[in-house]
């Protein structure tokens, strides 16, 4: 069994320094890895990033993160990333990493992702340059996620997880106003997950959303925004995949491979 701890949208700032540390110090007893699903700061300043860094430094389990829209607000995502990585976290954007959990290998592929909406109710790559770039940016994020998951597939992982800030499915947005769904996620992320295959998809961003969802390809989705889970983090117990018969590695990959 692989124990995954996950939380997003902790929105830390100097005034919240130390609030999560007591809970994070229990992680070695409860989990093998901590996933951070973006919006770790309020405005994306280095000062706020240092608060997050102090919460996660030497926490006793590997920490894997993606950034969120708040972490970009101050236009210094590279500095935020460097501060978090200096504290031991791996910050993913369009790439994956393999984390050792005892004798198991867990692959995590990450991207912040972006909006655009969901099948039949989404933005199109048409019209004004800004509109086209909006959709192209989401597409690049989704392509990066798919490529990272595919690369992890060849690295003997016992489980693969897709980590994003924006949501891949509308189900986990239930509770948010329908009108803002296109700003909360994109089906392109779910398509990437289903094309490459994964055992779990974790995201944040939708504070008024719902925890549980699933992609069309049958991959479980969990919205771990802190206001949704109502805790410092949530824990998921993943079981290693059974060796699949040839040509049917997973339901989603089976669709891809025909």
């Amino acid at each position, binding site marked *: 069994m692989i124990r995954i701890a996950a939380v997003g*949208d902790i929105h830390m700032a100097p*005034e919240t320094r130390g609030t999560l540390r007591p*809970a994070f110090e229990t992680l070695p007893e409860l989990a093998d890895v901590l996933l951070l699903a973006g919006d770790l700061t309020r405005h994306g300043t280095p000062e706020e990033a240092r608060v997050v860094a102090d919460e996660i430094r030497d926490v006793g389990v590997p920490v894997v993160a993606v950034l969120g829209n708040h972490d970009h*607000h101050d236009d210094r995502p590279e500095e935020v990333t460097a501060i978090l990585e200096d504290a031991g976290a791996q910050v993913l954007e369009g790439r994956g990493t393999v984390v050792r959990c005892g004798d198991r290998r867990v692959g995590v592929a990450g991207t912040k992702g972006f909006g655009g909406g969901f099948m039949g109710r989404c933005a199109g790559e048409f019209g004004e340059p800004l509109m086209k770039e909006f959709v192209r940016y989401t597409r690049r994020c989704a392509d990066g996620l798919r490529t990272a998951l595919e690369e992890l597939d060849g690295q003997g992982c016992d489980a693969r997880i897709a980590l994003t800030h924006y949501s891949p499915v509308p189900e986990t947005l239930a509770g948010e106003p329908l009108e803002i769904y296109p700003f909360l996620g994109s089906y392109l992320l779910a398509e990437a997950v289903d094309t490459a295959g994964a055992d779990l998809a974790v995201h944040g961003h939708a504070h008024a959303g719902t925890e549980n969802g699933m992609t069309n390809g049958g991959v479980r989705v969990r919205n771990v925004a*802190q206001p949704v889970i109502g805790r410092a983090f949530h824990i998921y*117990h*993943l079981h290693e995949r059974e060796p699949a018969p040839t040509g049917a590695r997973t339901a989603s990959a089976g669709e891809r491979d025909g």
Partner: protein
Amino acid sequence: MNHHGQEQAPGAPAAGNDAGTNLEYRVAHLREQIAGGPLGELGVRLEVRGETVLLTGTVPSAQCRDDICGLVAGELTGRQVHCDIVVADATTPDHAEDLA
């Protein structure tokens, strides 16, 4: 729940009134101010309920909640403001979900 401001006598603005006094527009701009200004808080919902403005959502700190409630009460002086914003729970989970 906190109450800010005092209730004003009911009565919708007549057609042609200055948009600056229209409660719906004022609340819309307040939403933008809370999301895009120094507060940077996108997780708070402001809704007009008759003559009252209701604030809901979860924020990371009591200071953040008080800043938002204070800002709205100050901007909407004379209106009743209900602040139902809560602070995020930072306790350790007491159970795990088994994804068998």
